[in-house]
């Protein structure tokens, strides 16, 4: 479904992504892992068009998307959440999601109809799905950290994506919140038939959820494969897991 081929990106001669490869099959839950600064977020930014690769290709459903602006890539069916929760703090929780739903329905530029009566059902369904319905009228900026992260995902769902990219969905969460969030993500993947690509620091979470794991180190892809294979890979153990498990 998504194929990243030999992608490079440098900032002021620093190679943030140095020939990364990634394959995501339809319906899979794929994790990208790697130490801090390995280039995971940059890779996600390259896939979603926030950054343009210096070299290499990103292909989604057989179509090259590496040169498209973010809003066009979103229209192709890739939605994302951000590592640092980036919501719309001055809008209500409801409106946060509604903005995405309206965008999906191509109604963002409607001028003379009250937005209050539009896309209400779809928005409420998403809020109910992620468990934020009671907080629909709260200002998003006043939510707890955990709810921010959930709202992030809810906004991404507003685009009815085929593929969801989550940048550290459980960052800063308590263990309880982490496990409930991962349960939510798995459920969403099943009920909505979503393909999910995420990166995560918590190794337990990654090896328990992902069907395929890609390991990045210094911007390079070391290996991508099934969790067992990755765990047993010598290079990975040297670069990353060895240090963590020791």
């Amino acid at each position, binding site marked *: 479904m998504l194929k990243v081929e030999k992608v490079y990106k440098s900032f002021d001669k620093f190679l943030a992504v140095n020939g990364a490869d990634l394959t995501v099959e339809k319906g899979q839950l794929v994790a990208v892992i790697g130490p801090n600064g390995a280039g995971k977020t940059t890779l996600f930014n390259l896939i979603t068009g926030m950054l343009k690769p210096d070299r290499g290709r990103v292909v989604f459903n057989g179509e090259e998307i590496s040169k498209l602006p973010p809003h066009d890539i979103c229209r192709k069916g890739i939605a994302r959440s951000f590592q640092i929760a980036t919501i719309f703090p001055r809008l209500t929780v409801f409106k946060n999601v509604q903005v995405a739903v309206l965008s999906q329905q191509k109604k963002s530029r409607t001028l003379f109809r009250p*937005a209050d009566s539009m896309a209400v059902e779809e928005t409420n369904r998403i809020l109910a799905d992620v468990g934020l319905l009671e907080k629909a009228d709260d200002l998003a900026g006043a939510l707890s950290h955990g709810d921010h992260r959930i709202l992030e995902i809810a906004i991404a769902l507003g685009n009815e994506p085929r593929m969801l990219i989550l940048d550290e969905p459980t960052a800063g969460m308590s263990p309880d919140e982490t496990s409930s969030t991962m349960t939510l993500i798995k459920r969403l993947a099943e009920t909505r038939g979503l393909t999910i690509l995420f990166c995560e620091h918590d190794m337990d979470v990654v090896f328990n959820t992902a069907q395929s794991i890609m390991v990045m180190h210094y911007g390079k892809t070391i290996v991508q494969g099934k969790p067992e294979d990755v765990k047993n890979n010598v290079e990975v153990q040297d670069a990353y897991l060895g240090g963590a498990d020791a």
Partner: protein
Amino acid sequence: MQNSALNVKGLWPSLLTLVLLILFPIILPQFYVYILAVIFVTALLAMSLNLLVGFGGLFQFHHAAFYGVGAYTFALTVTKAGWPIWLCFLVSPFAAALAGFLIGWFCVRLTSLYFGMLQISLGSLLWAIAFRWYSLTKGDDGIHSIPIPGFITSKTSAYYFILFFFVICLVVMYRIYKSPFGVTLQAIRDNPARCSAVGINVRRHQLTAIVIATFFAGVAGVLFVILEQSVFPDLLFWVLSLEIFIMCLLGGWFTFTGPILGAAITVSLRTFVGIYTEYWTLILGVILILLIFFLPEGVMGFFAQKFGRGRNKSTAPAREQHAES
């Protein structure tokens, strides 16, 4: 209609205010009627700016330029081109919107302060044209005694004319503010990167907002000419832009009606304190300082927080309130 920012208990307060405003010329001396008309024109200008500043998060530092374009287009088409007055009236806001489009097209390529810097320079260019092109605009002298139809030459009839268009613009702006376009614009203000990630073409959206806002600034410019029957380069000067920016902050830039209040306060200060001292801006400055310390969201913003935000008031979280002094 679900009203939140415009009023609290349905439409009644608005209608009552409107009736009062219609009755004012009968009970008030002519001078106050004139001041009210000035407030409407200024308020319309400030509200059009607030569409960008408060709801769009765009630092449109030199918004008065488009007010001037509207006023000058009207003055020139009436005096030089001799077009029928209704056509001049129609063309002028579009001329302002066109100027807004041309300048905005460059500005939306930049963000935050850089946007503001480019906007103020390009806007000043328009001022320079009005100031320097003597053969067309009479430069510093301005154009005076612009002929307008007899039925709006008296101050009272001009008042009604201005009130009529002010209310129409207000309703249209309110609908825009509540529309998907308006909600999306506010989302862009809060987080442009997130918006592009949900499939919104941020630049195009911002440019549309600029065109709409400059159109309304153009309407305000025309109304100014109706009221004063003259134009001069000060209408496009950056000082006026700063003044209306202050009105937005003063009234409450995250509220819909805040700029009206800001305009009313500023115009009243200028008129009534201006009688005693030419340093009335000193008082405005002191008010502004107090405002920043005690009411950072403006006067209207303070009340909106205090008494809830429309339909969300019951569940809206009580936010830190440090305005009790």
